[in-house]
């Protein structure tokens, strides 16, 4: 049986999906990147190889996320696509009529507007990471609350507390101020959820027409406090797909399926989990740009280079 592999290498998590020909998730993995994408990709593939039934043959691979090029050269991807396209594709698979996608991940948040199945507009957070998963993680750690309970606590709030959402620095100092005034933790957390939603709709969603069905995906969708805040702010239902946290990888797998068609895949096989990978870097002195070139080696062979402003180092 044919199946397709999708890999989403994000700042906070790496997701690996094995998708059947029918578009069903056979295996879906969510692993923390922990700053070591190479090792985690290898570890993820090792786990994926264990989970999948023996009669499955990987017929295509797609990678996405900020580490898509890295993953692409490591595994031999057939398609390397940006996360916006990948998320839009996955959302359309789950909900063909989808008109709006909210995606909030570790470092960035995006809004995608679709009409009649095609992306007509999108936006990503620009200069600030306020309202993304990393900030919620950080605040959960500061309050010593497991991030998984964050949403439940927010729902227990009975008194509104206003937190500034424009910038994480403002948000944090506001939270501390409110906490020292004696407000309850659930109220503060709820205030934070509302602030993040306000900032998201105002900054990322600026001027966009948010029409239902609305899909909310990315790691932050696990937080029911944020979902509730979205619904309150919009007055419309927000749907969370079953595989909300691995949608990018699902989209990448689907794109690989379309890319490969009946052709052959470039996938190197699960054997790469055992290969040694290392990275090195050097400064190019070809011009005044002094680009920092990063190289990745598979065994002793260079398989990819990044960081060059010109095409001098593109040929491997």
């Amino acid at each position: 049986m044919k199946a397709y592999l999708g890999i989403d290498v994000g700042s906070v998590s790496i997701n690996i999906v094995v998708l059947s020909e029918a578009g069903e998730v056979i295996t879906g993995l969510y692993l923390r990147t922990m700053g070591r994408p190479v090792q985690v990709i290898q570890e993820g593939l090792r786990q994926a190889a264990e989970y999948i039934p023996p009669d499955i043959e990987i017929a295509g691979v797609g990678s996405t996320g900020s580490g898509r090029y890295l993953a692409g050269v490591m595994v031999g991807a057939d398609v390397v696509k940006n996360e916006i396209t990948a998320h839009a594709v996955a959302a359309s698979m789950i909900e063909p009529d989808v008109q709006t996608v909210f995606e909030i991940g570790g470092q960035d948040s995006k809004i995608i507007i679709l009409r009649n199945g095609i992306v007509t507009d999108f936006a990503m957070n620009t200069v600030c990471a306020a309202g993304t998963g990393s900030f919620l993680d950080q605040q959960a750690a500061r309050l010593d609350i497991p991030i998984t309970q964050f949403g439940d606590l927010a729902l227990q709030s009975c008194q509104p507390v206003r937190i500034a959402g424009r910038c994480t620095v403002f948000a944090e100092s506001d939270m501390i101020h409110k906490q020292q005034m004696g407000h309850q933790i659930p109220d503060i957390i709820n205030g934070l959820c509302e602030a993040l939603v306000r900032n998201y709709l105002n900054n990322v969603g600026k001027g966009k027409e948010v029409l239902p069905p609305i899909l909310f995906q990315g790691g932050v969708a696990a937080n029911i406090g944020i979902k509730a805040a979205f619904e309150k702010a919009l007055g419309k239902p927000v749907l969370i797909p079953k595989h909300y946290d691995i949608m990018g990888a699902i989209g990448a797998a689907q794109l690989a399926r379309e890319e490969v068609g009946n052709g052959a895949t470039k996938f190197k096989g699960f054997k790469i989990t055992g290969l040694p990978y290392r990275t090195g870097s050097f400064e190019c002195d070809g011009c005044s740009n002094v680009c920092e070139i990063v190289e990745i080696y598979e065994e002793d062979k260079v398989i990819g280079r990044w960081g060059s402003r010109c095409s001098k180092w593109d040929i491997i």
Partner: protein
Amino acid sequence: MSKLTFPRMGESWRAFKMLLEDLGNDVVVPPRPSKRTLDLGVRYSPEFACLPLKILMGTYLEAIEMGADTIVTTGGVGPCRAGEYALLHHKMLKDLGHDIKMVVFEPPRIYPFNFIKNVWTLNKNHTSVRGIIAHIKRGWRKVQALDNTEKLSHIIRPRELSRGTTTKVYQQVLEWIDCAYTTKQIIDAESAALEALRSLPQHNGQDVLRVGIVGEIYVLLEPASNLEMEETLGNLGVEVERSMFLTGWTRDNTWKDTTERKTVTEAAAPYLPELVGGHGRDTIGNTILYAKRGFDGIIQIAPFTCIPEIVSRTILPRVSRDYDIPVLTFFLDEQTGKAGMSTRLEAFTDLMRRKKRSKLGQGSLIV
């Protein structure tokens, strides 16, 4: 003898160098903005000033290291703080102990005497008025040749068969124009340059998308400040048309508004009837004109905290809706990582391509 330098904006330095040398000056060509330029600029500039102020600060410091002691630059009128930058740079450089001279050109139609006085200062050879006019005309022709060549490179790049050939040839032909001196030589070099670009192997360009670039002048004109966005787009198969070139800007600011300028202002009027400083109104007007010409998308680029562009960015969603044209905005600051920008540009290209194909009724909606 004093050594002159000036702000670097794209390739125009080649013409400025020639003009200033013709008037008998010793010229220090500022280096292309690099990481070091940015580091120097950021270190000595106010934190919340915009990127052009910081890059220019770094550029001036580098030029001073190379021996420059006089800076020739432009001032400005209207509600954009860039008009104060010459003064601010002068003060900051003085604070750092650099005793430099600043020659600041204000728009000549408002300050004709400033113009005459400055030309007088720069005229070291005591060239006659007629001679000066001839030098300026020739320099002007060179700027035009440089602009025309750059414009053509934006059209050829997305159509090239072998990735990178346009950029390579473009770098070569710039040298030809650089070496040309007389008007005839400049015209000949320009024709040869255009011909060299045109004769590159190209595909039929069926799938090429057209994008209009609007925004603030400095980040539009200096590729090093916008992470070579135009080249990146060309490599993605996108033909770019930039709304601003030095030739156009200079014409609008020396004598009177050109017809183009009036058309832009008129187009912007229903959305933004006021001058908001910088090029805010032009951003709106040009977006509308590009949409009317059937472009596939618009990219606005601006320095972070640029007020005129913030004003226009707030208006652009409405223009985008009314004219059914996608708009993507980038605010640029000191970040040199290109990943975020590449992701957005790739996604934007996907979006435009799908939209175009669905309009043409071609099968697969997924690129």
